[in-house]
């Protein structure tokens, strides 16, 4: 029951991200999604009673709920990003695409993976759907920050997939991944400022000097 609630939380936040029209809404939804991820690992930690799982849990809380949304909102505040996301694909169509991707993820999971218990397969299907939707956000929004958020959604999906099918990666690997995401976000911040200073906007679809 609780798990079903969490899983629908993942899907709903992913859908909300595809139809979000403002960058701040996108960041807020990402934070909500990370909270669901935190709750999911917390549930795993409580049932598994591993100290390592608790550490991973806390790292998610600090990094994905705390630092990353904070850094992104700081960028928005500092450079006065134009709030409107100018969707290349309108919200209705985006939602249909997202639903289609979710359906395909289910089919993929049932065809390819052979899970003994149905819950594992559902979690996996949801995680694949998140990865696909994250990718869709990246290609359909040509703003720098929404690309980053799409990528982060994909990473959330990957994290969930790892938890679903393997019960989590080895401990130090997880920690290394967190470090990697952290470095990624910091470097992205630096580059967003540079892009903004040189182009006076952060609209990737308007960058056209390199062709052919």
């Amino acid at each position, binding site marked *: 029951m609780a798990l079903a609630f969490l899983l629908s939380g993942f899907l709903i936040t992913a859908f909300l991200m595809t139809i979000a029209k403002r960058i701040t809404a996108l960041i807020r939804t990402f934070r909500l999604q990370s909270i669901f991820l935190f709750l999911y690992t917390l549930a795993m930690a409580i049932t598994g009673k591993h100290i390592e799982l608790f550490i991973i849990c806390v790292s998610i809380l600090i990094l994905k709920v705390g630092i990353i949304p904070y850094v992104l909102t700081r960028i928005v505040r500092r450079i006065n990003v134009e709030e409107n996301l100018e969707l290349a694909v309108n919200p209705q169509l985006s939602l249909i695409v997202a639903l289609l991707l979710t359906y395909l993820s289910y089919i993929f999971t049932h065809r*390819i*993976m052979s899970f003994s218990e149905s819950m594992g397969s559902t979690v996996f299907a949801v995680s694949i759907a998140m*990865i696909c939707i994250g*990718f869709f956000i*990246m290609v359909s929004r040509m703003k*720098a920050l929404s*690309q*980053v958020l799409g*990528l982060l959604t*994909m*990473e959330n999906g*990957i994290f969930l*997939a*790892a938890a679903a*099918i*393997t019960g989590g*990666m*080895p401990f130090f*690997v997880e920690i*290394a*991944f967190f*470090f*990697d995401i952290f*470095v*990624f976000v910091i*470097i*992205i911040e630096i*580059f967003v400022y*540079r*892009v903004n200073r*040189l*182009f006076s906007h952060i609209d*990737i679809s308007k*960058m056209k*000097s*390199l062709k*052919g």
Partner: protein
Amino acid sequence: MLIGAMLLIPFVLSIFSLVIRKERALGITNAFGYGSLLVICVLFTNNFLARQHPLSLWGWLYIDSLSVFFMLTTAVVAFAASVYSISYIRSETEENKISIHKAGAYFHLFNLFCFTMLLVPLLNNLALVWIAIEMTTLVSAFLVGFHNVKESIEAAWKYIIICSVGITFALLGVIFFYYTSSTHAGIKSLEWVKMLEGARFFEPKIVKIALLFIFVGYGTKAGFAPMHNWLPDAHSQALSPISGLLSGVLLKISLYAILRFVMLANLSVGYAFSAKLFVLFGLCSLGVAAGFILVQKDLKRLLAYHSVEHMGVISVGLGFGALGGIYAALFHVFNHAVTKAFMFFCAGNAVRAYRTNNMNKMQGMIQLMPFAGIAIFLGAFALGGLPPFSIFMSEVLILIAGFVSKQYLVSALMFIFLAIAFAGLVHHISKIALGSKPQSMPRQKETLSIKFALLFLGIFILGLGLKIPNLFFILLSSCQKLILGQ
């Protein structure tokens, strides 16, 4: 021991470059550092081949002949790039294009970049390999966007985002491998040695899916078409010594990661499946690149597309597989690394002298600077694959492997695409090199360090075309055996 020293050198140098504030002194120390790194690397290779035993160090590192080969390639190109950097950075600072402060930052990033690249082939844990490869992207993005102008920042942004997405897919592949290894083989670890022991029990269906993700993911970074979009931008906008490293080494480091997973997959699905994927991506890259090479106007983009072309050649060679194809492909990895670095260094000189990347505005380079001019002219033939240069040797070996394994159509297609690329390249480069130089431009002074870097790489380009040293032959053959799991 030697390995420890080898990894320490770039690390120490990177700290050095934060302290010393003289770009010339820094450049020379750097070059000496990489010189000794190369010597250590050669000594290690020698020791290693005498023993022929994989080596495990501190639980983190695992070194077999494949690691040694990629490490050696990296060390050779990194040394040449460090020598070339001396005068490149010096003239950039003299022209006030970059400040002394930024020169220090350059050497700092250069060392971090080389450190991450040297680390990848040595790591035992496949998840750490993933992280190290992501780190190469993040570090080199600064070197791509070094000049802080619109074009280079755009290229750096594309580079970070596209490669990060690619590598996220690769991570999914890694997770699939981990899944099948932990549930079907009972090995709850991502360490290469342990996974290899259980690789026989992997579930073939999942391995195939995982391998697809690995190919798309790491293939993005290895410059396979159709995921190559970022490559011409990043390689043309980076500083020229860095372009050499990006094209020469970084693409291959990514290929190394693919090979590791292919070796795991061999034991459950066989090499034939991977071979099909290699041929598919290889032909795709060859075809796409050949088209763009013909219509190219920008010198460094021309060379960047040529890297896509050669990644295609390597990939097709790997696809030809058992009958010498892998040997030839790995040989080509080395040849392309040195030749492409050579060409990017020459192109760097041209771009700096003419102050443009546009090939239509360059003429008479041989008159303008005889050494680099002749070098770029000969280099075009070497890169296009004419005898007696080394790329000719490896391409012929790949074609022979293709015919021996009866893949006539693929071989013929590869030959046609290579011919197109050759025509395009020689046409463009001869226009640059020949003719008379613009009246207004005085003859350029060519510094010793540039000449030395070009000569150093030239020795490999010509030498390996004439004769393959015994040591190198043993190394490549044992790599081929390793990949096929014999």
